[in-house]
């Protein structure tokens, strides 16, 4: 029998009972207390640019149609017919003015409103037996967008998305607003891994410590020059609002007036993109990169949306090209996760940059990515071990960066340009930040 209070007590002091990575009772609590009310990413507006465009996305077992209606408004609708519960859309993407249920032909407009049903008069006696007015596919209880990212929450009283994102919105811009044009998403690649969904989310929230070893092979082959331990430990780890992430410390820029451009060039952004990046970012955002020299890399927005920004070498001539990926850890069960991995690129970027960046993404992340391959090997193996009985005797130490009495080993960075708290060097600050939010959700009542 699960003693949740004991589990959460351990987690809050940075000692994680290993079974939480393969425990059906924990998974049920996550479903009922966390995913039932958290803001969860479902799609980006660039995936449905035109009226009638739709994608179908899940939040655990619930299938949602994310559609742009005829007036251009984005709608998120539960994909279940009001009559007998059939899925009204069984494709994962496309363009449609209406969704017609295959069972009895109840038909809905792409804004969710019921447009018609057969034999309304004969079968129901018309409006008296079944009033069509106001009938619509169930909308997501709450919906919000930020930088084109579409989120939903199962809680109709959820805080406004902008309130939820809080200080993390500052960091989101580095991935999803590199120019006023915003980003476009491609993909996603989708695949299932026999790993618990939390492991990837925690990893991206702050695990700079794994990079030098797990990803040693990409340094060996000269694909990416940064992950050497000597460089990785110079990066800042930040925790801000519902997110946390890692950065790389770039070499000092020469001239303070050209520092931002120098740092962006160093990671491979072409001169053609730099003015728009400069314009899109605030003084503080520019200062993070230009003055502090911290370039955002991996991050996680609680609960299950992660980001990565790396800059590998994409050809034999030594050309460096940056890429951005968004990835979602979609829980299937306590032991299985569907990964959705998108390539994201500034919509206004030159086509040749988009090609280079896409190539950089494919070589590093996604199902064939040379970083991601080794990450997933670790996560599958952890999940496998966490399912046994010995794992119930083991608490995993996630206290890196804390003294024995729970104080930070060193003070936060005093001059860090971004909001939140940041530490330089290795430490599991971001993972504990994520786990604290996880604990808060699981400690709450089911809605």
């Amino acid at each position, binding site marked *: 029998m699960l003693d949740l209070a004991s589990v959460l007590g351990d987690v809050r002091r940075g000692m994680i009972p290993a079974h939480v990575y393969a425990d059906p009772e924990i998974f049920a609590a996550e479903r009922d207390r966390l995913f039932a009310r958290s803001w969860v990413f479902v799609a980006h507006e660039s995936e449905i640019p035109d009226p009638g465009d739709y994608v179908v996305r899940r939040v655990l077992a619930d299938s949602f149609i994310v559609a742009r209606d005829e007036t251009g408004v984005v709608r998120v609708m539960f994909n279940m017919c009001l009559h007998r519960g059939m899925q009204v859309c*069984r*494709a*994962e*993407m*496309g363009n*449609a003015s209406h969704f017609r249920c295959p069972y009895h032909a109840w038909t809905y407009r792409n804004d969710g409103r019921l447009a018609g049903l057969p034999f309304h008069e004969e079968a129901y006696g018309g409006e008296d037996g079944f009033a069509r007015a106001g009938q619509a596919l169930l909308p997501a209880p709450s919906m919000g967008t930020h930088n084109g990212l579409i989120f939903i929450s199962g809680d109709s009283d959820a805080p406004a998305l902008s309130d939820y994102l809080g200080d993390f919105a500052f960091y989101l811009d580095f991935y999803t607003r590199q120019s006023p044009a915003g980003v476009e998403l*491609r*993909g*996603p*690649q*989708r*695949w*299932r*891994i*026999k*790993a618990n969904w939390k492991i990837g989310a925690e990893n991206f929230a702050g695990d700079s410590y794994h990079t030098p*070893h*797990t990803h*040693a*092979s*990409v340094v*060996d*082959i000269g*694909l990416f020059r940064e992950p050497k331990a000597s460089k990785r430990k110079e990066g800042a780890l930040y925790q801000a609002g519902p997110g946390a992430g890692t950065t790389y410390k770039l070499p000092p820029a020469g001239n303070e007036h050209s520092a931002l451009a120098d740092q962006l060039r160093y990671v491979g952004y072409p001169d053609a993109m730099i003015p728009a990046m400069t314009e899109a970012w605030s003084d503080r955002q520019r200062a993070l990169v230009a003055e502090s020299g911290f370039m955002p890399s991996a991050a996680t927005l609680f609960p299950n949306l992660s980001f990565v920004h790396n800059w590998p070498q*994409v*050809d*034999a001539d030594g050309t460096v090209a940056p890429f951005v990926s968004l990835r979602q850890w979609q829980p299937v069960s306590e032991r299985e996760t*569907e990964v959705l991995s998108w*390539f994201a690129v500034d919509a206004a970027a030159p086509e040749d940059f988009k090609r280079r960046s*896409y*190539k950089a993404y*494919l*070589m590093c992340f*996604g*199902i*064939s*990515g*040379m970083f*991601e*391959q*080794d990450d*997933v*090997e*670790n996560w*599958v193996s952890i999940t*496998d071990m966490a399912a046994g009985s010995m794992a119930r005797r083991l608490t995993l130490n996630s206290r890196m960066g804390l003294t024995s009495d729970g104080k930070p080993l060193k003070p936060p960075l005093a001059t860090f340009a971004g909001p939140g708290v940041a530490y330089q060097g290795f430490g599991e600050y971001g993972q504990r930040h994520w786990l604290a939010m996880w604990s808060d959700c699981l400690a709450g009542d089911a809605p």
Partner: protein
Amino acid sequence: MTVGRPLPYGDPAHLAAHQFLVEEAALLDAADYAGWLGLLCEDISYVMPVRVTTARGADFDSLADMGHFDEDMYALRKRVQRLATDHAWTEDPPSRTRHFVTNVRTFRDEGDLRVESALLLFRSRGDTREASLISAGRTDLLRATPDGLRLAGRTIIVDESVLRTQNLAVFL
């Protein structure tokens, strides 16, 4: 896709193409990736589009701008170099793979051969994990060179929209 009629099975060009695919599969199953690279043309395009579930009549069922692979020779060489390091953890211990190649049809395509095949990749890792299967169709472009046939292009059409294998640290 392919136009025209396939070569008769007794045609020497078909036999050579079929043998090429079988020999290639043997190199991959033996993890002789350096040998495998030797079968590729320097200008190879090695592509595996993301397959998607769309309505009948939607006129597409894979993504034009996103693949699981979209490789040139530089990228394939890097992948092979990586597997040869001491730090490619996901393939150490290595997977046991078997590339089953069947339904081979060969077409003349100007000076080259266009070869369609069905591929079933069985992959087993460790002693507790379920094995994975990847089913795909392939369309290859084989070019005659002084050293024999070489692979100039491959398009892999995978039969799942959500792959059930932990990664693609393998070639198809």
